[in-house]
């Protein structure tokens, strides 16, 4: 019964999130100070956030306004953190 339940989009998303997490760790653990790798790691993080919102919080089927606000949050947060990393 549980196995049948797990045949869903959310499970595949979970798999993707786990892989991206491991990739982030492998890439980001040793990169020194002030490198572009950090921007990539941040981008991966906010992409994971996006999928958690869309497929775990089920925003994919939410009113467009709510979904757009969430996606905007992901983009804006990434831009702000990346900008602060590079230019402060």
């Amino acid at each position, binding site marked *: 019964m549980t196995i049948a*339940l797990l045949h869903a989009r959310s499970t595949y998303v979970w798999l993707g999130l786990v892989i991206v997490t491991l990739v982030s760790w492998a890439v980001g653990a040793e990169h020194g100070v002030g490198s572009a790798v*950090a921007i990539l790691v941040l981008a991966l*993080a906010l992409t994971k956030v996006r999928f958690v919102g869309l497929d775990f919080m089920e925003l994919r089927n*939410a009113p467009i306004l709510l979904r757009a606000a969430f996606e905007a949050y992901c983009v804006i947060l990434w831009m702000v953190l990346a900008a602060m*990393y590079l230019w402060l």
Partner: protein
Amino acid sequence: MNQLAVRSAVADDRSAKRHIPGEPGVWIFLFGDMVVFGVFFATFMYERAQARELFDDSRHTLSIGIGLTNTLILLTSSLFVVTAMRAIRRSQRGTAQLLLAGALGCGLAFVGFKAIEYTAKVSQGHVPSENNFYLYFYILTGLHLFHVVIGLAVLTLLLNQARKAELSPTRTAFVEGGACFWHLVDLLWIVLFPLLYLVS
């Protein structure tokens, strides 16, 4: 697929489009929390810019293994919760309760690992007053831990609700909202882990 099936599938899609997970009010809280944590993240990046070498050196003294494990634990717990929601919708109460119990276990494991991590750091001499990095490390992870503990209470309530044969619309909204709060806890850690352990 015949005409009727196609039309009903499209109708399902259209009505599914208009569903707010939980209730509108929950999103005031969730978005509010996300925005304020965003401010916290930005504050951390600002402090980092004032002392890049210090932050990078301090970052290397963190136990990245525990951080990574905790990230995977929370991701798995979120999977359990979203699958439990689907089980509830199909009235598979037993499975839903099992999955929610699993999520609860993951949450407890997270807290356990955090306790181990904090103890290890403190015994190595890394206390909040050591430097700015550790000050923010303890404050940000502490605030997140506070959310996790609240999340554990919410999961327990959801576990209770999953025992009922049928949920009223208000109860369903509450359960969905509670699930979204747990996903928020996961979401915040997804940003915190790379921010503190990788990007610093």
